[in-house]
């Protein structure tokens, strides 16, 4: 008899943690929206929505690739540097610094394709180091984290490249039916990745590798190939994000593009509910995680809290999210 109430009590705790682990971030996001509706001036405007969405876009795009990498049990520190590389390369091509192309549309298309492809190739290089040499992901991607920005700086000699090319900047400044183009881009990438992770064999293999790599290998999954692809996808996402950033800024500064992006992306993934040890991943969660972090920052700034304090709050949120997630797992 004495045991029964206690069991009931612990059972209740189980549920609370599990519930929080699953829906905590979403609830936090909704609470933030309610808070802002009540206390922040001019919150319920299209402009606020646009500001927040455009700021969160690049983080989400990078974080989608990062989610896939983390789902395999890895990490990609090089994303910010790869953004700098694609951001440095594209203007060099469409401004005709490498080879002059007369038709501006052709030049822009070439620039976009080549710079994203180059970022993808660097991602492939990360994957190669990790799968061929069995180097830990954190060290393998550290190489390009350090060297990648250097490569971008050497390419541009550290100079700022400014441009005014509407055909290219459409991806950062244009609108379709009033919706910013980069938001549409983000939605497409999120939906594609979510579908791939849930519904394709490749997606299943990613999760299987993160869950238990040895078992995945024994069950006949081409682990090395899947990892190669995952890091390449992360590189491609970073490449796209780099282009969006320079399109918004009308300039490309190899010292600045993507700086600290790896942290923002990892934070979004962690807060979104993807297991950092791999084996469980949610793309939609990452989207919600990124939006929550963005909205926290916006809420603090809009209410007069300095940016530096927002950093401290962000740190607290990351720790809290991961802790709740772990409790949920331990109790489940």
């Amino acid at each position, binding site marked *: 008899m004495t045991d029964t109430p206690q069991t009931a009590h612990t059972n209740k705790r189980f549920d609370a943690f599990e519930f929080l682990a699953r829906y905590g971030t979403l609830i936090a996001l909704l609470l933030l929206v309610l808070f802002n509706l009540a206390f922040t001036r001019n919150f319920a405007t299209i402009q606020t929505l646009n500001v927040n969405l455009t700021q969160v876009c690049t983080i989400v795009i990078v974080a989608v690739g990062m989610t896939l990498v983390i789902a395999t049990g890895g990490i990609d520190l090089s994303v910010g540097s790869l953004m700098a590389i694609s951001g440095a390369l594209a203007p060099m091509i469409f401004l005709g610094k490498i080879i002059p192309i007369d038709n501006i549309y052709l030049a822009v298309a070439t620039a976009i394709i080549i710079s994203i492809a180059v970022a993808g190739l660097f991602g492939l290089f990360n994957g190669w180091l990790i799968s061929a040499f069995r180097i830990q992901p954190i*060290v393998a991607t*550290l190489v390009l984290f350090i*060297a*990648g920005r250097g*490569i971008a700086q050497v390419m541009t000699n*550290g100079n700022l490249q400014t441009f005014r090319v509407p055909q290219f900047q459409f991806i950062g400044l244009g609108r379709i039916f009033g919706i910013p183009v980069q938001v549409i881009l983000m939605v497409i990438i999120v939906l594609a990745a979510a579908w791939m992770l849930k519904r394709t064999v490749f997606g299943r293999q990613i999760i299987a590798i993160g869950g238990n790599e040895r078992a995945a290998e024994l069950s006949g999954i081409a682990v090395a190939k899947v990892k190669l692809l995952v890091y390449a996808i992360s590189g491609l996402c970073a490449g796209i994000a780099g282009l969006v950033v320079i399109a918004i800024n009308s300039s490309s500064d190899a010292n600045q593009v993507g700086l600290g992006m790896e942290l923002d992306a990892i934070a979004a993934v962690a807060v979104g509910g993807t297991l950092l040890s791999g084996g469980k991943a949610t793309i939609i969660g990452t989207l919600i995680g990124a939006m929550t972090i963005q909205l926290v920052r916006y809420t603090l700034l809009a209410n007069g809290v300095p940016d*530096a304090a927002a950093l401290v709050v962000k*740190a607290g949120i990351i720790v809290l999210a991961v*802790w709740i997630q772990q409790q949920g797992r331990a109790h489940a």
Partner: protein
Amino acid sequence: MTRAKYISLLGSYGVVLALLLLIVFGWARYDYFLGFFNITSVLRYNSMFALVALGMCFVIMTGGIDLSVGSTAALGSVVAALFSPQGAWIGLGAGVGAGLCVGLINATLVTRLKIMPFIATLAMMLAASGTALLLADNQSVSVSYDSGFTTIGQDNFLGFPIPAWIALGAYIVGWIVLNFTSTGRGVLAVGGNEDATRMMGLPVNRIKFLVYLASGGLAGLAGVILASQFGAGQPIEGVGWELFAIAAVVVGGTLLTGGVGSVGATLAGVLLLGILFNVLNFENGKGWISLSAYWQSVIRGLFLLIVVILQAKLSSRGNAVKDH
């Protein structure tokens, strides 16, 4: 000899050999390379990295990682600068204390809340950096020049820079702790196999707690030297220090999976990376080639690449030897 020991030995000898070769190369090629001024300025500047790398080395040996060291150093430099008018020792104590606070939080997050070191210290990286910016009001804080605080970073003792003495002292202590104390042996045991170590009855949590605390304190000390050397507490310094430290530790043959490591080889790793830049600067001065500062990070990355591939090759060969 176990595979791990074998790799570590090769790693340590490799890095010392590479360091000697680099020094001989520099001596043969440049006139003032082994001049007093160059030696002292290399030592003075790299002693900060050496301190951070020492803490990182211990953390990595337990199989963890500390990404917060760069912003902890920045925080330490700001706090030290704010307290510097009260005197050199108080400034020093305050900076180290700030670092210990960050280390304490890291240690608590990792050992009590069981949050992965990677993510716990990542969060503290943001928090320490935010705190540093808040305390400094987003600008650098100049130190007091009257209280003797600048002695720590700028003066010499027996002809060598004081920061170099501090770093040397820290490395000697680190070496003794690692090799001659039960805590030190525990550090390697935890990194080798945490569950087994726990079953053997070693205080795993206490050991892990101590390494994060030490790493924070050493980063704070590096911050004190930073503030004292450059005359200001700098909230935005320290970016990328954690990665430099990790690179130095890896170059020194310490495995990132933990369980293997050497304090001396880490010092050699720091000096190797530091002198590599020194050589590049001299080479630029010669005028044969002209490498912009931007090449430095490319070369640093390439260097790390070579080392990790070599380490991976060696460890897989070690594996093969063990398997047959």
